[in-house]
């Protein structure tokens, strides 16, 4: 470690001002270039519903919507999201767009500890916005990047399946 360059630390500390629209509200944050989006959301913006599970894009706990698409907030630096529209579990809850998914997850107990749940919901929301009536296999495939240690997945698949059915019977995506 004798060759360690102190100036690297100074650079790492220097913050940059970034602007996002988070859950419909414009915000500005001072972030270090090395700070990931998930850390920025959780720390600076106190949106702790987005979770960090593996820090390498394998578990899906940190999924958020970025410009309408599900992305891993742990695989992105906050500075890369400058100017983006970001919707987290908190915003999706407030706007009511996933209310039917949340109700069905609740009714079927498609969660236990709840740590994976926000990411599951973001991914399920994305799936149902793309495919109106996914098969159970489609649902399992779509969730293949969402790790849940508690449930065994079946109730989650059941819940998404039921919402897809209800939405299509009520005349399409709400």
């Amino acid at each position, binding site marked *: 470690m004798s060759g360690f360059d102190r100036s690297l630390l100074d650079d790492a500390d220097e913050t940059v001002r970034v602007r996002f629209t988070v859950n419909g509200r414009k915000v500005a944050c001072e972030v270090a270039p090395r700070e990931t989006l998930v850390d920025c959301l959780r720390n600076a913006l106190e949106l702790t519903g987005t979770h960090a599970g593996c820090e390498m894009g394998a578990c899906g706990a940190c999924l958020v919507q970025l410009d309408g698409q599900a992305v891993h907030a742990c695989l992105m630096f906050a500075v890369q999201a400058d100017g983006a529209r970001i919707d987290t579990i908190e915003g999706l809850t407030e706007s009511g767009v996933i209310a039917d998914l949340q109700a069905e997850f609740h009714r079927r107990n498609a969660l236990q*500890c*709840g740590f994976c749940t926000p990411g599951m919901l973001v991914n399920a929301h994305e799936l149902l916005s793309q495919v109106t009536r996914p098969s159970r296999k489609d649902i399992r495939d779509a969730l293949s990047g969402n790790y*849940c240690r508690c449930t*065994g997945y079946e109730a989650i698949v059941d819940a998404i399946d039921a919402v897809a059915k209800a939405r299509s019977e009520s005349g399409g995506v709400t």
Partner: protein
Amino acid sequence: MSAPLTSLDRPNSYIGRSVPRPNAKRLLAGRGRYVSDLRLPRMLYAAFLRSPHAHAKIISIDAGRASALEGVHLVATGADLAKICSPWTGTLDHFKGMISAPQLPLPLDRVVWAGQAVVAVVAESRAIAEDALELIEIDYEDLPIVADIDSAREGGGPLINPGSANNVCFRSQLDNGSVDDAFAHAAHVVEEELSFGRHTAVTLEPRAIVSDYDPSAEMLTVHHATQTPYQFQDLYSRHFGIPEARVRVIATDIGGSFGMKLHVYHEDMAVVGLSILLGRPVKYVADRIESFVSDIHARDHRVRARMALDAKGEILAMDVLDLTAIGAFSTYPRTSVVEGNQVIRLIGAPYRFKNYHATLEVLFQNKVQTSQYRAVGHPIACAVTERLVDMAAAKLGLDPFAIRAQNVIADDAYPQTSPTGYRFEALSHQACLKRLHEMMDYDGLRAEQAELRKGGIYRGIGIAAFVEITNPSPAFYGVGGARISSQDGAIISLTPSGEVRCLISVTEQGQGTEAIISQIVADQLGLAQEHVKVITGDTEVTPHGGATWACRGAGIGGETALQATRALRRNILEIAALILQEQQSALDIIDGEVVDAGTRNQRMPISEIARIAYFRSDTLPPGTQAQLTVSHHFAPQGYPFAFTNGIQGCSLEVDVETGFIKMLKHFIVEDCGRVINPMLVDEQLRGGIVQGLGAALFEECRYSETGQLVNGSLADYLVPMPMEMPDIVIAHVETPTADTELGAKGCGEAGTAAASACVLNAVNDALTPFDATINSIPITPTKILKALKRF
């Protein structure tokens, strides 16, 4: 064998109803309050420099540059923390002859596994703390490594603990009946050696702790993501010399635990010490690689076992040698030998035979500790037993169902004592076997299997019977000297507005503790569940108890709540009787109203009783003191454990070209006694099965010869994901325990207990035409191809 009807079976009872968990809505809205979310004023962040060596002497530590970095508040070594924290030793008295070296938060002069925390840095952010770690220089001198079971046993090989004669932590033997004689006269003997890889809990939220020491109040508050807050209150008090009443442990929402979060971790003790040294809150959340190298691992057993049978297929005897390597220390305070102990005691548990011999040898090695994780010992005991039963069936030309039907302890033959010394109150193997046979459409599956084999498609069908240990009494840890409670406590109050608050010592990790406790309270008091608030997980608020481990929440916590509620109900009715000038026995409570017991005519709401008792006690007869808060404790008596049972089945397909296994369907028939909430029980079974399937097919902590964990990330350590997992069909048989009013036993480990045995049997069934066998878990594609001699 359905349970006889009791007062718990009223038509409007909450017992036995699938009601959703009241507290789950917060989690669905992203409003969980996990310890990793917590931020306190003046809070600092800890990070740890870890050993790159599996075994080495620490020659020197130079932390000068780290201490000088802007934003760093403290750099602490083993010696700094040893001044304020007394060492701990992971042994229990009832494991005779067990040894383990004393442990400290950070080592003084020697590291014993790769990944062990060596130096702590506390800084204004985690990032700064990690920057500082880069500036610390440690000189190590390599020591010889003990990397596995074989090198641990080698005579004259390296020793993990200097001064000890060998690397044995614990040896134990069971000997019952006349085993040698039984084998000598047996018509058939089957024998196999089975190995079980290390795996780990991989909770989605890693370990998290915020320790907050306030020197002005001499008070330690620890926000700790744990199942067992009272255990940690006791340990922090004793090891840091702080009076118990000045230690508060708060366990809020926890992102998964499964037994992994009830052990003492070096980093957690260090963080408590760091907050004492600094007089400020200090937070530590393990990152994923840290979880892999420092969370307890589990299993890592190699079992040689044989079974003797008579000519008709009656099991006569079993003889077992279980070797397991646990790490360099035994884990504190529950030890690392419980798994092996349960392996040798659970082997053969479903079956009626008298001759049993077992040897357990628990060894040290230079890896992170193994210890209790969901279904401690069960998957190993079950896989060993059930594999031998299948091998015996094949040898005798019996069907797997037939040999089990012939040998399980009959449902009407209880109570029974197993040859390993376990006392079974009442189990239901016959009923479960019969139910599984129907539910699987076993004959249909066999016909389909035969048909598909003709076309080169190799399906396997496996079944595995199991016995699960639940509702542990003080015989589990208390007798060994551990201050781990087997009783639970509840404080239950009727509030002034007529609602009910229940503070209870069992804790919630998402399995639905708060839901079932509120069901029991609502049911027993006679009011709607939404008027019951359950509070858990805070040692300053909830009474002392064992909390949640070894499947005791429903059986012991539930009974505690039931008895507390009955006491409160009596007190409410006593006041109601005075107000209404009635006999207490003539009154009942239904849906929050005091009613005439006979006619059910409403007399007055319990809110009115609360109003009078709290605000107009002057209108009650002189001498009346209303007791609308009741505290009650319950410890299990009678049988030392409430054993449960069940059987699993599965159908899978083995691709003999690639070695890949596709799970098609999984089945379980399970008997956890009285079912309080069927939906939550089913979810426990499904979740448990999927953890067992992960172990069976994917999960293994893989180490290099130099003791380095080589797959410590979620990309390299494979866990079961949605697309690989099958749908799971569930049925119940209910045999309530007579030791409690509630009759509930545990169900959280039943799924994990037999899933890997079931898969092992199914894979071997699929490979029958090739004369290839698998005897190692996880069953990876490589192992399949090797067995097929195609790799």
